[in-house]
């Protein structure tokens, strides 16, 4: 929500800025001013070149005080890749004081936030956060509190974040006192204790928290129409962190605590919950082990020592003491977690008890070639050459159906919360042998990484993609229905009530099949597009899809009635009078039969996984088989004429996969998160 006054900045860069000195001025000996850059907290900033050609930034201090100048001296010799280097402090012939600094050609965080009013991607936000934490940690390590951290003082060049205007806060304070004004743009980042005159390092942690909130959401946590209102909110109001997911929410809550003693003890602690143990990947993609400790960062390297699993709300004395543990800024190296399969290829992923039992037996069988051979010979003989072969096939068929139902129910009972990302699988996500907490963090990281690698899409692009998917699904459903029209009679199912076998559908039945398949596919694609790239609760999505299924059921029934379709098909199960509400005596399904079929057809499978652009493959047969079997089971359970249930299930699963967008692994690699 935005207030009348546009917070927290923002005179746009370039807007009506007039500078004291023009291009070509040599007011400071040894330097030629080329252009004005902007206005800092205490004066104008220029881009200049030395007589030898070195690029520098010249900051004109409009009001110099000896006491404050002495305070800057300690910053002159600070060296850190995340701090804008101060080369010198000079006085011009006209008596003006200039600070000669490193020139950073990249834009500021303020510019970036201006361009992204909805906030940055998680990857970008973390890049900025890590850089500012490292730089601020260096300042705190030397007893310097920045006191004026804000987006306008943070810059990024070559993916390296740099902090400027440190050690100069006294100039800023003096300037503001003289001007008797307090810029509303700065109070958004001001810790509450500043109003009481306390300027400990906790105020920098608070400011970093405010900026992190702004990067994640596009707005500062406390807004207002006046300086007083904003300061009051800093003192009394709690930030609304509900829209922000974990682990960011907890980090922000701690960083923005009103009591400075309850914030993070060290700025580095802010990163502990956010960056899981990672592996450094070099330019060739080879993983290198994380270094246990390092003194100072080197440009071009990113690494992360294994951090203690300290809970957020407790002090981390290990990290607080390790003030030399600084984090370098990453280069264009992808940081990936080793997948569980790659780390331990021989570890079997545990599943439900039945799977466990048979998987264990299968493993034992595979260890012995003699047993393996015996097994296969017996299998072939039993299934083909003995009188019990039909029984074996029937048992296998019904066993598979029964196991499928059991597996679905077991999965629903053990389903983890998660996003739309990941491959479609009715089974629970595989669990590794890591601890529960590390596994959870890895899952969070993978989900975050997967979601972050999704390209940010505007509404127009989303709408365009959706329309394209709907068109493709229409074509796919039509073609698939046509194919099944010709294929199904060959497989035996009949559409004339069982009197003869191999009778194809009537045109009316084919129309019903096609139209309902199209509408069913649309009912999945439309909400899935809205869920794309977001973390959502499966139960909420199932609820939405169930409602969609009900709507499809109503539509199907309407088409049935409008076209006066004679739809006996093959009713494989006849129930007693208590189930008459599902079918009429003639075998025609009632509205309740349609509703029940489609509601359950859309409720159980995780349809959004089939349309997820980040699914493992663009098309997989396993989900088609599962959805077909589920349709078969539902039709049997709802007394719905066969084989429409299996056809609708299979066609919908196929059409959704064929029409939904998909990112190949090459495209995902280009968008891999850089940590």
């Amino acid at each position: 929500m935005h207030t009348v006054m546009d917070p927290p900045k923002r005179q746009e860069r370039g807007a009506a800025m007039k500078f004291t000195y023009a291009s070509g001025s040599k007011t400071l000996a040894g330097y030629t001013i080329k252009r004005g850059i902007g206005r800092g907290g205490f004066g104008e900033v220029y881009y200049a070149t030395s007589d030898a050609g070195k690029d520098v930034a010249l900051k004109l201090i409009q009001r110099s005080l000896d006491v404050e100048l002495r305070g800057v001296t300690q910053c002159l010799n600070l060296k850190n890749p995340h701090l804008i280097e101060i080369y010198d402090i000079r006085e011009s012939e006209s008596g003006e004081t200039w600070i000669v600094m490193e020139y950073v050609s990249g834009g500021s965080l303020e510019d970036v936030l201006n361009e992204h009013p909805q906030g940055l991607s998680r990857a970008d936000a973390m890049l900025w956060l890590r850089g500012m934490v490292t730089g601020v940690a260096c300042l705190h390590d030397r007893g310097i509190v920045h006191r004026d951290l804000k987006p306008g003082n943070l810059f990024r060049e070559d993916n390296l974040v740099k902090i400027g205007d440190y050690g100069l806060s006294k100039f800023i304070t003096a300037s503001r006192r003289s001007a008797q004004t307090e810029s509303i743009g700065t109070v958004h980042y001001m810790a509450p204790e500043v109003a009481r005159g306390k300027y400990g390092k906790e105020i920098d942690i608070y400011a970093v928290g405010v900026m992190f909130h702004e990067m994640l959401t596009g707005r500062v946590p406390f807004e207002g129409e006046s300086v007083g209102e904003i300061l009051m909110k800093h003192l009394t109001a709690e930030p609304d962190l509900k829209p922000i997911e974990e682990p960011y929410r907890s980090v922000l809550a701690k960083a923005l605590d009103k009591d400075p003693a309850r914030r993070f003890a060290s700025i580095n602690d802010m990163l502990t919950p956010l960056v899981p143990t990672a592996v450094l990947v070099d330019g060739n993609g080879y993983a290198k082990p994380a270094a246990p400790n390092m003194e100072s960062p080197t440009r071009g390297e990113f690494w992360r020592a294994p951090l203690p699993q300290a809970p957020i709300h407790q002090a981390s004395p290990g990290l607080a003491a390790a003030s030399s543990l600084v984090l370098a800024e990453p280069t264009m190296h992808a940081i990936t977690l080793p997948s569980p399969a790659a780390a331990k290829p021989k570890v079997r992923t545990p599943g439900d008890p039945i799977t466990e039992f048979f998987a264990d037996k299968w493993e034992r069988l595979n260890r012995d070639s003699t047993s393996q051979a015996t097994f296969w010979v017996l299998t072939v003989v039993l299934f083909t050459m003995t009188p019990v072969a039909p029984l074996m096939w029937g048992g296998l068929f019904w066993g598979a159906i029964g196991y499928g139902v059991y597996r679905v129910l077991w999965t629903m009972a053990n389903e983890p919360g998660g996003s739309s990302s990941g491959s479609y699988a009715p089974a629970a996500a595989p669990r590794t042998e890591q601890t529960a907490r590390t596994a959870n963090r890895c899952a969070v990281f993978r989900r975050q990484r997967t979601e972050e690698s999704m390209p940010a899409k505007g509404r127009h692009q989303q709408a365009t993609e959706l329309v394209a998917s709907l068109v493709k699904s229409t074509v796919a459903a039509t073609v698939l229905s046509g194919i099944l029209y010709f294929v199904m009679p060959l497989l035996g199912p009949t559409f004339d009530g069982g009197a003869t076998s191999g009778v194809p559908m009537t045109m009316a039945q084919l129309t019903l099949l096609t139209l309902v398949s199209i509408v069913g596919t649309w009912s999945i694609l439309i909400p899935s597009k809205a869920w794309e790239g977001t973390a959502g609760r499966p139960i909420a999505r199932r609820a939405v899809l169930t409602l969609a299924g009900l709507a499809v059921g109503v539509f199907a029934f309407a088409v049935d009635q409008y076209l006066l379709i004679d739809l006996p098909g093959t009713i494989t199960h006849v129930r007693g009078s208590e189930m008459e509400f599902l079918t009429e005596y003639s075998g025609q399904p009632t509205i309740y039969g349609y509703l029940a079929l489609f509601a359950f057809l859309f409720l159980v499978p995780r349809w959004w996984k089939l349309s997820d652009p980040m699914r493992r493959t663009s098309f997989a047969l396993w989900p088609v088989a599962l959805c077909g079997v589920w349709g078969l089971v539902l039709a049997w359970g709802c007394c719905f004429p066969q084989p429409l249930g299996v056809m609708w299930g299979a066609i919908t699963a196929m059409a959704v996969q064929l029409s939904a967008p998909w990112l190949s692994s090459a495209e995902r690699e280009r968008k891999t998160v850089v940590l």
Partner: protein
Amino acid sequence: MEQSLNAPPATTSQSANLRRTTYLRKTMTLFGREHETHVGQRFLLWVDAVGGFLVCLADEVTLGQPDPTRGVDVPILGDLSARHVRIRRDAEGYLAQVRRPIKLNGRPVEDAAPLSADCELEMGAGVRLRFRRPHPLSNTARLQFLSRHRTQPSTDGVILMAESLVLGPGPACHVHCPGWPREVILYRQGAEIWCRATGVLEIDGQRHADGCGRVSLDSHVSGDDFTLSLESL
């Protein structure tokens, strides 16, 4: 070029250098002022609070490593050949004539290739530029660095100026100036460069109430909402 009896005859390279660097210089006296007009040259454009740009006026520019002896129009501090690629402008658009292999939108180019209105050039070891012609009514193009490399002297981008150069807040402007309320246009009129803006314009201390005036390659121009300077190279 005069040759003295004792001077050695001009070598081929000297003549070639002379041809490359010869430009039409016309000195005019207008209302008591001298205005130098230049064609076929480059200049630096410094825009306060926006950035610095290398502006090339010639229809043909060479990109490569900085080498004062080779007359590179766009010197880039990168792992490139001295004269890596030549970009030529004509009525139909832009053409890249390759001296060393480059990639255009990821595809290798061996000889020559037309440059579309928005494409990516990759030269040498990772020097990547985005070539854009943002304005539909102007043949002026902009080269923007996608990699960490820069020109020498350091600038924020390169403008291959055709008939006009538009500075302003819109996406179609050659130099994007966020926050500017209006556009400012530098345009070529014959061998001269002029500036037009809304409101009063001040060029080298002289006021132009009609918002239009001639600039030199060392002019300082300011309006109500902007300040820019040209610096000859």
